[in-house]
């Protein structure tokens, strides 16, 4: 069973591994063990939030670029 502090430490490690790369998460998964469903499901939920935030950030940047590209034809862009 993982304690709350263990879960927080794991989530901190998940954030850190984004910077360090894939091998880090493989190690982390191994540390998590294979049967702690609660921790695993919370990790999925956190990664989904992260994915949705990244998608919104990208869409905002695409929209901002379209607005400044001449002849884009999108609302707010130069005619």
């Amino acid at each position, binding site marked *: 069973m993982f304690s709350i502090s263990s879960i927080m430490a794991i989530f901190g490690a998940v954030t850190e*591994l*984004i*910077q*360090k*790369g*894939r*091998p*880090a*998460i*493989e190690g982390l*998964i191994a540390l998590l*063990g*294979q*049967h702690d*469903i609660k921790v*695993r*499901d919370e*990790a*999925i*939920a956190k*990664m*989904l939030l*992260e*994915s*949705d935030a*990244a*998608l919104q950030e*990208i*869409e905002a*940047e*695409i929209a901002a*670029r379209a607005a400044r590209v001449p002849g884009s034809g999108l609302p707010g862009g130069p005619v």
Partner: protein
Amino acid sequence: MKRLLSIVLVGFAFVSCQSGCASLGGAKQAGFQGFAIAHTSLMLTKNVEHDLVCGQSQAPPPPLCVPDAVHGQILEILKQGFTLDGDLGRLVQATPEGVPLPAEVGTLIGKVTKLISDVLALIPKSPQKAALVEKVQIK
């Protein structure tokens, strides 16, 4: 491309493992691992590419940096990637314990991997790109 994309292989191995694969902790656990690896690789690719765009403080000088027009192309690919990443995570999340993973899990992992590969192909060669390729193990 000298090697097959390792994440694809991992993904299909997980899917073919299905519910009876006790050594991996079950099908849902395998799906979680596949999603976690694909998601982390995509996030890492996004973050590194952003830092390599010409004009960013951490970007190398031309021609090693990512030109603005190429960055625009990459954004469109990443948009697809994160859309599929979300679909993948939600599919794994919705899969009940003890049942085989939907075949679509492997398909989505393969699609995300292909998109990461497409992004890497657009990034000019640099030490930063080499480090990224090494981390996501797509060559």
